[in-house]
């Protein structure tokens, strides 16, 4: 279904609106069958067969407040897409887009807008000019909305400037090494996945879900090609093509690879807003296996320990590979084990040669010496899932973390991408940054809007206390900023819980609860159409918040203003 939806998106750019509407109708009908859709969908527009939100109605340009910023949080599925509007120094608004991606299948079926409508809205709101595009990291749910050059919905946009994390830099040695390792590991993982799919087809589900995020393709049969392409030309992987589009449009001169605490960042044509980059840390030590922090921080960590796994995975069944644990004189190739003049009897009797051929046991209710169920032919491949998780965490930790500081009031908007613990901790505790602890504590203390890390998952919003020596939720929104602190969760919970075979618990209930408590109800979540006043918050306080929120009539987005 996801593939169809995307193809239709491409077609739509060139075809008539009627055709597009027909495609959408089809998708919506499917959606009507799902329970979740019934629950979430409240608007008549989402009833089966009904017309989906028309081009959206809000075709007017997006206007920032005179003394602050407007943040538009799109409601387009499980993923990130934010449009920020600042007042420009020449009186014209300045538009900043942060990420544009979603998990296929997580929007229309859950009563949310499809990507076409979102992009039309971005187009109308900005008049097809984005002053700045920020891409936090290369996962599908942050980049797939950009499409491919040539068929991208952004083809006719102009882009002033583009910011990426230093990990995307074509010249940075560390970045090059990281990408090499990432590519190698992906190839190995896909190979392991394909072997595993043969050995135990029902064991690859979790692995597939993770590989889709990394590779940006939605069907397992495309994995191999996507991984090979990525390895051959890392800049040309599916996820990277969208990023390339942004780079091309901004031009080499105006593409910035951000190193935390180094570059002085200013949004083009905007005065009075400073941008601080807090992560990902730029440090060769993090790639070393023995650095315990590295293990949390980067995709290449533990590469050595895993190299032997990937080598074996790529070699394919029966094929000898270069890094055997023992000299060949100690080993017998597996396929010769059952023919070996001296040892075949042992392996036939105690391991077993073929499925179903089992020696009789001594007693009728005793297990045989060589039953199928005790063999381990594919068990080593089960490690792939864990490795995919580690890799995924690694890429999440390459997230560009930005704090937008409104200088006059000191208020800060914190966008952390999908940063997990390793990235968070590095903001202050890594050796290159440890003198920045006061700065980071100060910035977090003044934070009034927090884009919640990794869809509100475990380990992507750190729990702590005011005294903790690492950045955490408790550091945020201190003093007078506590009354304004708000959070945005980019998750479609009902969809995430349906991920097979293991549900994604996004957001984690305890993190969601902590956010609601801290923000006193001022929490936006993509799958929740309204932000309701909790009991115990005075009408006056709520009014102040409410006055700065606008919920799109078609459910496309939340607009939220922060005033200087």
């Amino acid at each position, binding site marked *: 279904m996801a593939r169809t939806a995307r193809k239709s998106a491409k077609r739509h750019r060139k075809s008539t609106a009627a055709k597009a509407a027909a495609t959408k109708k089809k998708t919506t009908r499917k959606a009507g069958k799902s329970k979740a859709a019934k629950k979430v969908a409240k608007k008549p527009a989402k009833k089966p067969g009904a017309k989906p939100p028309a081009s959206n109605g809000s075709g007017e340009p997006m206007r920032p407040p005179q003394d602050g910023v407007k943040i538009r949080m799109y409601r387009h599925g499980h993923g990130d897409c934010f449009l920020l509007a600042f007042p420009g120094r020449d009186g014209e608004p300045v538009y900043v887009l942060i990420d544009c991606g979603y998990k296929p299948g997580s929007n229309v079926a859950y009563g949310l807008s499809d990507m076409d409508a979102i992009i039309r809205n971005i187009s109308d709101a900005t008049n097809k000019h984005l002053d700045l595009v920020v891409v936090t990291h290369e996962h599908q749910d942050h980049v797939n909305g950009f499409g491919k050059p040539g068929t991208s919905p952004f083809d006719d946009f102009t882009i002033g400037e583009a910011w990426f994390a230093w990990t995307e830099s074509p010249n940075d040695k560390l970045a090059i090494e990281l990408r090499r390792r990432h590519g190698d590991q992906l190839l190995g993982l896909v190979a392991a996945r394909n072997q595993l799919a043969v050995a135990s087809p029902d064991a690859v589900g979790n692995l597939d879900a993770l590989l889709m995020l990394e590779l940006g393709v939605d069907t397992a049969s495309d994995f191999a090609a996507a991984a090979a392409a990525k390895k051959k030309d890392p800049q040309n992987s599916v996820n990277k093509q969208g990023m390339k589009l942004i780079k091309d449009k901004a031009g080499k001169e105006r593409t910035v690879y951000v190193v935390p605490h180094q570059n002085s960042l200013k949004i083009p044509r905007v005065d009075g807003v400073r941008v601080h980059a807090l992560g990902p840390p730029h440090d060769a030590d993090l790639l070393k296996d023995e650095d315990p922090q590295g293990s949390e921080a980067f995709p290449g960590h533990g590469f050595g320990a895993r190299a032997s796994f990937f080598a074996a995975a790529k070699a394919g069944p029966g094929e000898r590979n270069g890094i055997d644990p023992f000299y060949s004189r100690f080993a017998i190739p597996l396929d010769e084990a059952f023919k070996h003049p001296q040892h075949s009897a042992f392996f036939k009797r105690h*391991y077993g040669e073929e499925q179903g051929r089992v020696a009789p046991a001594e007693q009728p209710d005793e297990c045989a010496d060589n039953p199928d169920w005790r063999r381990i032919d594919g068990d080593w491949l089960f490690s792939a899932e864990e490795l995919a998780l580690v890799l995924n965490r690694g890429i999440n930790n390459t997230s560009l973390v930005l704090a937008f500081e409104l200088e006059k009031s000191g208020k800060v908007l914190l966008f952390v991408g999908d940063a997990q613990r390793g990235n968070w901790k590095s903001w202050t505790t890594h050796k290159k940054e440890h003198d920045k602890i006061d700065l980071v504590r100060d910035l977090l203390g003044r934070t009034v809007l927090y884009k919640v890390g990794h869809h509100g998952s475990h380990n992507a919003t750190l729990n702590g206390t005011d005294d903790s020596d690492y950045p955490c939720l408790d550091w945020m929104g201190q003093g007078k900023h506590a009354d304004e602190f708000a959070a945005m969760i980019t998750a479609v919970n009902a969809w995430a819980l349906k991920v097979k075979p*293991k549900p994604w*618990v996004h957001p984690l209930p305890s993190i969601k609860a902590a956010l609601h408590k801290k923000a006193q109800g001022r929490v936006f979540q993509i799958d929740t159409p309204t932000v309701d006043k909790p009991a115990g918050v005075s009408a006056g306080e709520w009014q102040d918040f409410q006055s700065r929120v606008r919920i799109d009539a078609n459910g496309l987005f939340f607009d939220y203003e922060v005033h200087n």
Partner: protein
Amino acid sequence: MQSLDIEAPRSRRLRIFAFDPSLAQRTDTAAIQEIVVAIPWERSADGGRLPEGPVGEYIEVVDVDPASGAVYPPVNLDDPNLLAQDGLSPSEGNPQFHQQMVYAVAMTTIGHFERALGRVALWAPRRQAPDKTSKEWRSEFVRRLRIYPHALRDQNAYYSPSKRALLFGYFSVLSKDADNTPGTTVFACLSHDIIAHETTHALLDGVHPRFNEPSNPDVHAFHEGFADIVAMFQHFSYAGVLRDQIGRTRGQLNDSESLLGQLAQQFGRATGRGNALRDALGETGKDGKWRRRMPDPRALDKIGEPHARGAILVAAVFGAFLLVYKRRTSDLFRLATQGTGILPEGEISPDLANRLAEEASRCARDLLHMCIRALDYCPPVGITFGDYLRAIVTGDVNLNADDDLGYRVALIESFRAWGIYPRGIRSMSIEGLVWPSGAEVIAEAEIAAKGGKRMKRTGATPSKEAIKSARDSSASDIADLFTDVQKAGRYGGSDASAFKGSSRFHKWDLSSDRYQVWRNMEESRAAVWRWLVLGKGKKYLDAFGLVIDEDAPKTVYRNAFGEPTIEVHSVRTALRRDSRGQTVTDIVVEATQRRRGYFEAQQQKDKDESKKPIGQREDGDFKFRAGCTIIIDGTKNTFRHIIRTPGRIDDDGELEIVRAYLTGEAEDDQNAFDGRRQRSLSEPRAACDEPFAILHRHHED
């Protein structure tokens, strides 16, 4: 060929790495890198030589490495050349040595279990659900635990409950530092502690079938902690290593860094921690100095991750060891220091080191056996650290009436310092901790039955006479179980199909064949079940905390007649020698009931009160179990102890506690996608869900 007048040797001597290969590469530890262990002299079934593999009575080493597309030929330990030199010399590069080492260490661990429990070790049988070939549940005897020394290319090693096998991994090191060389391979199967740890998981699975279902935060942690306790104390039983370490630490085991308490050295270094993987006893601070981990009574409130929580249990037991060791060696220190207690500078005398090592080794062995023996005194499901303390104390009181060496007091002191105490006891004294005797429980249940609800609530202490009469009256009912054939009645065939019709209890198990032992146990299981449900055991159901009333909540599993079912999981005999040299025979029975639990409280209520019975196939969101462990004194025909779970199967409060735990969020060992707690270690959710694999993987996140 064998000479008639020379007896076969009693043991086989095999060389192993004392810790793991890394010690051989450091000059200060090179001397103790290799040790020789003596394990039972095993023969093949027909009395011939030990089959290649080795494939013995308990263990089969099958060295298949699918990732490398290779197999490694099995070692022949009966080769005269190997017999003459205590097996192959320790080597990282020869897979046959790896086979020898896993066999030797696993057999050593099994030996400790057999001595402590007083019976042969059995692996978990394979239970098969009804399928096309059979309509009934079947049990299959699994004679040998299989060991795959090179199964995985991963920083991992685990016990696979579904394969009844240990899978060890290996990986190559690319990092370069003082303790690692890039390009070398680290093998989990060469770490003494990892082998002992994983073997313990397998043995535990064989003792308690439902023991690893997590219904509280201690269950998984107990498995991890217990396996580490076994690995650690097993180390202390090697004299050479102990002597060296005691000499090095000048006998002060409690405040110096000693290798003995650190598990899995090389594994830890290679995975980048610089320290042992699970250093329960202390840690090296940022200044490079090692410090003992001081007891923290609040640690349990803060730590939920199973390994970290398990480390608390290890630390508590180790704390007790230090207390006993200190007490037992104070005279030696006085002698060596003319009463000052202050040792002169420099190394201690080798004689003193020897004597200290002897004391330490004896204390370690005693404590190890106390810890293992306690397994028979635990409730059948939902173990907590507090229950475990009660189990250790009770087991020891039964065997050694006097505690002249102060083990029990030391354990209580150390557990208390770590904030471990059982729920609902009156005092942390020995009397308070020993599980109540069967007669007390029965007398109490009688009072409660007479007194109605009010008495149930307030509880009542039965009089001495009531206890005595309960003891006397139960003796003939127990004798009935032992002597009479237990009839199946109308349940014929619905349970334990192998023993249709009638079954007999096997009280004295002197059989040397483990298959026969297992078979007798299965038959005894059937006999106990019948005795409980149809026979004279029925009158004690109240005391056992078992419920067969039809008005129990509908979610309790029921048989075809609509009555709540009782499962007898295990009937084991333990033959032990007490401190006066008398042989003690105990029969340990575990009986439980199960009930469907639902994550939604309202759904639970609806189902509990539903008019129509719940379909046999419906399983609910989780299983809630309750029941008891009954320890029968086989000589005196008394219920020595009745150890019940905190609530009966119809106890909604206990069910709520389990639900709250299961629906709570998981600890830090979870990843960023999956937030729920794992339901059970024995029932993988998917083909690739090896429960212990997940628990054991070296996690940083």
